[in-house]
């Protein structure tokens, strides 16, 4: 589904990713771990198409085609979703209106009619129950005045509503207390399927206690330095990054 080959990226002429390879098959869950500044968010942003980053070399293939020249909105419509490490505020735009607009845009791309308000509301209610969010959430304005945890939940809520094929979660666990973490993990687990894949970016191993990954990769200085099974995350937790990236 996703194949990244020798990807090199920079921001403001500052090289960040330095030859990264990653391959994700349908239904797989990959965890990417790494110290601060190693390039995790850069990787997520570049897959999603943020043009603040320059791609200097390599390629990103999705569904067997290069997506480097494809706009971020088209990538999203193809089924790539990114849960932001720092979700953005959009004052005056309610959560329900934003999600409705996004769902409608995605459906339009697939040639589907807009959902009726009642169907949409039903879907929102179901997913909010899943994520234990109260219904007052819908009328609040996007991420404005949200606590860190509320922002992350709002990201997963959108993920659930849009049902993407590839979800990239950028440090969704940071800022969540243990209860919230379980709820979010539970939400993600429910969305796992034979078709849907996940890239879970995290700094700590604890989220992986609840979402068990098929593969774990360790990113250091813009390269994947080690890959393995779920055990690698545990080892990392015990020994620390220094030991593993040595």
């Amino acid at each position, binding site marked *: 589904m996703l194949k990244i080959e020798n990807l090199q990226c920079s921001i403001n002429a500052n090289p960040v990713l330095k030859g990264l390879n990653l391959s994700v098959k349908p239904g797989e869950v990959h965890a990417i771990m790494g110290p601060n500044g190693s390039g995790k968010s850069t990787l997520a942003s570049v897959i*999603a*198409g*943020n043009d*603040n980053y320059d791609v200097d070399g390599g390629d990103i293939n999705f569904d067997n085609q290069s997506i480097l020249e494809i*706009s*971020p*909105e088209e990538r*999203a*419509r193809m089924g790539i*979703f*990114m849960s*932001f490490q720092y*979700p*953005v*505020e*959009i*004052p*005056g*735009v309610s959560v329900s*209106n*934003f999600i409705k*607009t*996004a769902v409608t*845009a*995605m459906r339009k*791309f697939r040639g589907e009619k807009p959902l009726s308000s009642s169907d949409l509301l039903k879907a929102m209610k179901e997913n909010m129950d899943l994520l234990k969010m109260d219904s007052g959430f819908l009328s609040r*304005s*996007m991420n404005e005045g949200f606590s860190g945890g509320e922002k992350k939940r709002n990201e997963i809520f*959108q993920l659930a509503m*849009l049902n993407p094929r590839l979800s990239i979660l950028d440090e969704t666990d940071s800022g969540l207390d243990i209860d919230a973490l379980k709820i979010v993990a539970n939400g993600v687990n429910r969305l796992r399927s034979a078709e849907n894949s996940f890239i879970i970016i995290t700094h700590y191993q604890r989220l992986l206690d609840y979402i068990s990954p098929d593969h774990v990769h360790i990113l250091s200085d813009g390269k994947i330095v080690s890959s393995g099974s779920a055990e690698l995350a545990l080892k990392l937790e015990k020994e620390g990054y220094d030991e593993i990236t040595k």
Partner: protein
Amino acid sequence: MGRKKDKEIIGELTSKKYPYGFVSDFDSDTIGKGLNEDVVRLVSRKKNEPKWMLERRLEALEILRKMTPPKWANLKFQNINLQDIIYYSAPKKKASLASLDEADPELIKTFNKLGISLEEQKRLAGVAVDVVIDSVSVSTSFKDKLADLGIIFCSMSEAIQKHPNLIRKYLGTVVPAKDNYFAALNSAVFSDGSFCFIPEGVRCPMELSTYFRINEAGTGQFERTLIVAEPGSFVSYLEGCTAPQRDENQLHAAIVELVALDSSEIKYSTVQNWYPGDKNGKGGVYNFVTKRGIAHSKAKISWTQVETGSSITWKYPSCILKGNDSVGEFFSIAVTNNFQQADTGTKMIHMGERTKSTIISKGISAGKSNSSYRGLVKINRRAKNSRNFSQCDSLLMGNLCGAHTFPYIDVKNSSSVVEHEATTSKIGEDQLFYCNQRGLGNDEAIAIIVNGYCKDILQKLPMEFAVEAKKLLELTLEDSVG
């Protein structure tokens, strides 16, 4: 009655020959450019005006002669030569098109985006529209209903003929000719406009819309509007329309006067969408408007405006809060794009005790445009225990546009409170990317961000107007990030 029906009426009104004032047998070439006493006399004579009206016009001309055009720091434009304008011409009948296929495709594209019906498109584009028999009765019942309540709603020309006492009593009492250069100009040569009178205790049961008045009158280069609300009455008035208004007249200098007598309420909503000029700033309407209302005891005046058009906009809808406990409100969205310039704001003059005013202004600048908010809050010595709250927000798109805020506050007593808040924000790349990531293209992203930003004010507009205004905002800002 909703706007749908209003629109049906328009078809009927516009298909009739304009019955007042200008006559079509008059060849516009017989009077050339320029402004002088003879021209003013001619305008008045052609409109069959009584002597007192002519005298007022001549007085205004005299005042104008002694004035010089204002200079403003934040608007840049070439001097307007009053001698280069034609002050009298019969409304030109636009060459009628046989079908929409002959109309400017750009215009039709815009109409479609605004969701304007086919019939309506034909009318706006100048396609000959058949008279819809049915709408005659609609129009009649509409006028009958207003007449039953004693409400007068007609053109200014008609009002001068039929209601001279009311016009003599109120016209020019809120905006006298000497008020400013453009007010003097308008008072001397105004072409036509609307008059609206709501008798004591009457709640006008429908939104009154100038939408059809303007179209009936042809171009309103020097429009004149007067609304009088008698004690305890209420009226909601809509000016303008969202369809783009093209006009070869570059200078527009209108006056709107509102008189809200004791305990009455006037809600005045405007959507202004004059031609803004092309992407390079060529052409476009200069819109210099004087709008002012006077609120007597316990009365309320509320201005709501959505300004998206014109190459230059200069307007400050104002309230004179004369009576005790009177209330003034100003809610504004001003969008500028490309090379547009807008200098707009409000003046709240507190004279009575316990008077209250609220100002919420949202400026949106894109392209190379410039927008300024200029507001005056003046609380007189006598206006004890008065309050004002002002909030002026600016939203910038890109790095080439500008937004400026000039709040002037003048409080002459110590029991009054004035609060002012101002913010400037930018549509950030991060906001756009966030929306893109959820499947929204740039235009959709801007639309949702801008609508969110303007939400408070869009909510103040009458429902159906708000829907149109929203679409208009989206359209105005389309393609403004690349």
